[in-house]
């Protein structure tokens, strides 16, 4: 390791973090997929995670809403530690929105029903109110006219915007995005990124795994680079792209830019 490797990755500056991960490890069987992850996410902070395929980006953000379990270290979300015997995992998941690469809309439900399902069953919101909220967010992602259709009748970009709206309907405190645009045709990427940029402007706390470096530059407070299950480098976008410190970061950036 060279001498100017960071150790705090900008975590020290964060006070009152909404997510705090310390000395976290995860294994898939024998495979050490996440190694000594330390990350604090501030309220309203926006973090972009990039790194080569298989480096553990998805696994890291999936640990945050416990779609994957970690085996060592600590993850604290909004003051509650994620442990094995956690009773209210549903409560935490309701506060953490997640947008997937392949949208994962519920194909047997109309768009509105996709959006109202969580509020009605988890938040116990009356149906009428949930539908109003749903229409509000559908307008926000510019797709209100499709409300009565089924997901199978929408384009990929439209489906991903619906998926974002579905998460927003739960009024989450944090939004996680796992490569939200990488399954989309180029002409649809922008419509999804625009929605995400709107969201950023409104002060949503976001953790985004993406290779859209334009998005990272204009929206992120911090960009993280992961490789072989470790956070190798983290910095504000300007320094991250202009003066990458680590050789692996330099190599990665030269490949994708």
């Amino acid at each position, binding site marked *: 390791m060279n001498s100017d490797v960071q150790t705090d990755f900008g975590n020290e500056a964060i006070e009152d973090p909404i997510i705090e991960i310390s000395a976290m490890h995860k294994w898939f069987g024998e495979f050490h997929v996440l190694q000594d992850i330390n990350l604090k996410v501030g309220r309203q902070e926006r973090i972009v995670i990039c790194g080569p395929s298989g480096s553990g980006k998805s696994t890291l953000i999936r640990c945050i*809403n416990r779609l994957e379990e970690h085996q060592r270290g600590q993850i604290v979300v909004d003051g509650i530690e994620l442990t094995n015997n956690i009773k209210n995992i549903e409560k935490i998941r*309701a506060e*953490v929105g997640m947008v997937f690469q392949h949208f*994962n809309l519920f194909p047997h439900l109309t768009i509105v029903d996709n959006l109202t*399902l969580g509020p009605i069953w*988890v938040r116990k919101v009356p149906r009428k109110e949930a539908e109003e909220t749903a229409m509000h967010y559908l307008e926000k992602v510019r797709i209100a006219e499709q409300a009565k259709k*089924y997901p199978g009748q929408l384009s990929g970009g439209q489906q991903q915007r619906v998926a974002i709206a579905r998460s927003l309907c739960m009024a989450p405190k944090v939004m996680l995005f796992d490569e939200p645009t990488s399954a989309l045709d180029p002409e649809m990427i922008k419509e999804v990124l625009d929605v995400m940029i709107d969201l950023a402007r409104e002060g949503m706390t976001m953790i985004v795994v993406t290779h859209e470096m334009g998005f990272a530059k204009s929206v992120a407070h911090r960009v993280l680079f992961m490789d072989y299950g470790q956070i190798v480098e983290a910095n504000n976008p300007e320094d991250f792209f202009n003066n990458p410190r680590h050789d692996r970061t330099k190599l990665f950036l030269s490949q994708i830019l």
Partner: protein
Amino acid sequence: MSAEQTDRQPVEELKPPAASVGVLGWLRSNLFSTWYNSLLTLAVVYLLWVSVPPFVQWAFVESFWTASGKECLEADSGACWSIIPNNIRFIMFGFYPYQEQWRPGLAVVLLVGLLIFSQFRRNWKKSLLYYWLVGLVVMGILMKGGLGLAPVESTKWGGLPLTLLLSVFGLTAAYPLGIVLALGRQSRLPAIRSLCVVYIELIRGVPLISLLFMSSVVFPLFLPEGVTVNKILRAQVAIILFTAAYIAEVVRGGLQGMARGQYEAAESLGLNYYQTMRLIILPQALKIVIPPSVSILISAFKDTSLVVIIALYDLLKTTQAVLGNPEWMGFSAEAYIFIALVYFVCCYYLSSFSRKIERELDTGY
């Protein structure tokens, strides 16, 4: 795109070659396209030639529709269909008291009406459940008596109402049980999982007939002196337990066909296990398994005829009883053809019912 297409002039009016249209074209492409297709066609035509005319002769030309059994025997020519109208009430209702047979008749009509009503999606509301509950109570009173109707022992029930009773209740109870077993088999708790596996494998490894025997012969041995459980109920339970094991495996197949992303999306919204299953996974998985489930339901429906071996007079047994009557002995072909038709109509209805539901549920994924 479309503008480009409409602007284009057709190159020239082209007609398809004569050999590919018309009767000749159809014959050539469908029946005589190769030498072995031609051979097969000729063989089939020959078989039809030797079998169909004699059957038509027997069933329609020389048949009797109103004659008594004696007249049929004396004429000794075509089919004696009169065995059906002459015995229809016994075939349909068995030993149910003759004067009261309108009651099971009405119960069957009610049941069929409810089934048809449930077929339409616009009727799928909570009220449907109440209609069924009321319908079941009314059917029960009609069959058993009460409220001014003379009581009828369940030992006298028989024929079509018994067959429908055993199958409709068997199937509606077996389906939820099968779903629970399928979910149990996927449970994270080893105890539940192995319990379900053992149950499913045990039941599937045993023929229905032996379950029926056990329910009627072995099971009463374990009951305390003086306690008896209704024979129909015991047969019903055996049918439910048997069918549920098969349903469970089909449903499990559907569950395994579900993408992980659906579970993850549901979980990340904060839905718990029960909600995830009920709202997201089962509606999709059950839709996938409609065709194989219907196969199971149809064979379960036909298997109810096995209750004859524990001396219940279902549709098949009442027919056999009629054939035991000296006047009608020897006309089994006619009687069995009729019973086959009744079964066919029911099974065909079942599968068209399922096709309809499949269409109703189609959302284009």
